[in-house]
């Protein structure tokens, strides 16, 4: 092809400086020259297109859920995170210089383990039905975890994890998700092997879950999976064959809890009643003290006031105050009845109707029986 080009070029350049007169022979060569000229143009266009295609073919796009790595002569371009190409358009040399490897990627991924669950099928999962439990668990179909105290439990787990080293995660494993799932499986068996059945099921499920999370983290670091654990969620159930027994135990603890709570509220009530009782006893004692002390003091004050009077003439003092109080009493009495001795000297019979008035505050004070002195 290039030979042709040369030939043609020579012709074209040579022509102008030495114009040859038109002869029939020249006309033929001229037609040939024209033909060559036009075919040369076609070749040139094709080559230009090829060059354009060559460069344009270097463009590639990375989707939003994708990452790509540009390998130049097989080695990633850039180190670590910098080697990772995010969503958008990029350009690379065509093979064999550069090569682009794309992989689906989302930062948060999940892995599920049913390697501790009894046999179900996807259809059963979808319709939430299951085979009735058999007498035994067939290791070929049913899976379960063995707890530290050699009990059987079923666990299903799902793990959310973040890819922290995509280069490692995507390019160092044929299937990193499988490796992660296996790390989760391993963690389930590992954690179950050291918990007793009640801790794993109910009493300390948080610790059980945290042990699993820690183990997955540890294993994935050891295996250099390039991930960190975000969260593990668990479903833990006793074997279906023993569901009834486990429920009974649970109910027993609920009952015992209730009995305890009743006892506690009884205790609270008894104590607060006792506190109230104690406080009121103290209060009464306090007020008794105040009253007694005040009363005696006022008596004493009164006595002190009266003492000089009395000393002047005790006889008169006594008579005077006796009459004075008697006057007061007579004046204040509601009813006054004068009952002179019968002339025959016989004693009189007096009928008293004590409930003559509806009770208001205090029962009517008993009147002194004033007859037959």
């Amino acid at each position, binding site marked *: 092809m290039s030979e042709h080009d040369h030939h043609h070029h020579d012709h074209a350049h040579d022509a102008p400086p030495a114009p040859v007169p038109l002869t029939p022979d020249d006309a033929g060569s001229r037609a040939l020259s024209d033909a060559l000229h036009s075919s040369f143009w076609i070749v040139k266009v094709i080559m230009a297109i090829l060059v354009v295609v060559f460069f344009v073919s270097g463009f590639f796009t990375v989707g939003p859920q994708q990452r790509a790595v540009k390998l130049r002569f097989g080695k990633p371009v850039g180190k670590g995170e910098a080697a990772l190409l995010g969503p958008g358009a990029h350009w690379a040399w065509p093979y064999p210089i550069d090569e682009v490897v794309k992989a689906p990627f989302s930062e948060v991924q999940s892995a599920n383990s049913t390697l501790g669950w009894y046999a179900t099928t996807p259809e059963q999962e979808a319709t939430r039905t299951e085979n009735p439990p058999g007498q035994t668990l067939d290791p070929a179909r049913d899976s379960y975890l063995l707890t*530290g105290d050699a009990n059987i439990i079923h666990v299903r787990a799902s793990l959310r994890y973040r890819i922290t080293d995509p280069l490692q995660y995507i390019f160092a494993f044929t299937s990193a998700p*499988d490796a992660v799932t*296996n790390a989760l499986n391993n963690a389930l068996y590992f954690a179950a092997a050291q918990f007793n059945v009640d801790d794993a099921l109910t009493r300390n499920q948080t610790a059980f879950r945290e042990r699993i999370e820690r183990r997955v983290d540890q294993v994935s670091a050891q295996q250099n999976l390039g991930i960190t654990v975000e969260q593990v969620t668990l479903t833990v159930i006793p074997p279906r064959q023993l569901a009834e027994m486990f429920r009974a135990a649970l109910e027993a603890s609920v009952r015992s809890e209730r009995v305890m709570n009743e006892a506690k509220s009884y205790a609270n009530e008894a*104590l607060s009643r006792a506190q109230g009782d104690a406080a009121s006893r103290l209060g009464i004692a306090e007020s008794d003290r105040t009253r007694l002390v005040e009363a005696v003091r006022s008596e004493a004050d009164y006595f*002190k006031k009266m003492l000089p009077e009395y000393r002047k003439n005790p006889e008169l003092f006594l008579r005077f105050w006796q009459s004075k109080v008697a006057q007061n009493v007579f004046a204040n009495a509601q009813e006054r009845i*004068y009952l002179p*001795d019968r002339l025959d000297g016989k004693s009189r019979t007096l009928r008293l109707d004590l409930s003559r008035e509806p009770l208001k505050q205090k029962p009517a004070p008993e009147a002194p029986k004033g007859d037959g002195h």
Partner: protein
Amino acid sequence: MKKNSLNMIVGALLILIFGLLLFLFQVRTSEVVVVTTFGKPTRQITEPGLYAKAPWPIQKVHKLDKRIQNFESKFDEALTPDGYNLLVAVYAGWRISEPAAFFPKFAGGSVAEAERALQEIIRDAKSAVIGQHPFNHFISVSENELKFAEIENEILQRVRGRLQTNSYGIDIAFLGIKKLGLPESVTSEVFQRMSAERQVLVSKIESEGNARASTIRAEADRDAARLVSDAEAAALRIRGEAESKAAESLQTMNQEPELANFLLRLTGLEMFLRERTTLILDQNTSPLDLLNRPANASRK
């Protein structure tokens, strides 16, 4: 002339690229390569980069996956030294480390062939290691007994040893237990034991709950009684104090006991007959005696 040389360059480039394709090849970061010369492996490449070769049909390039492959063992039985049949499955991550050794060993680098060989090696290693560990090394609530990680490590070391001595060109990156189980017949025994344990647990929970509840009640009763009796004692003390304080005041009245007595009686009388009183008096009561014998009475 310009056009001419441009065309020359482009043409030369095309030839160059064609030549490059014939004589050069790339090794990706995720690959290892075996180069065979007339069918015999003569060169292995484990580092990524651009390499030269003689053109086909002299040399041929075989690319193998360098990434870590997932391997899962079968779930089969092995006997522990204390007589338990235990089913164990393990998983492993393996990769081709020596392609020159790997390639001829497994029918042109077949991964499936390699996995078949691994299956056998791992099964042997697994049962050998399980044969050395009693049941409570696999599951135990006591941290000292549990040898989970040790067991995994021992299997790994054994497998590595076997792979090395047989020079399979395979390296195991990691190995872990994936699943544990018991033979089917044993599971029903476990169920029986678990069910018995549950029954014991139920009665234990109930009796413990009741015992604790009655302790709580008894303690509350005791504390309540103590509170009240303490308060009573305190009240008694308060009253005692009050009386001794009152006695101080009484001291004053001691100067003239007769007057004190009189005054107290007066107040008492007044208090007693304060309201709603009905007085029934005969003629002997002062001052009503005045009605009878005024002269006498007054004189008396």
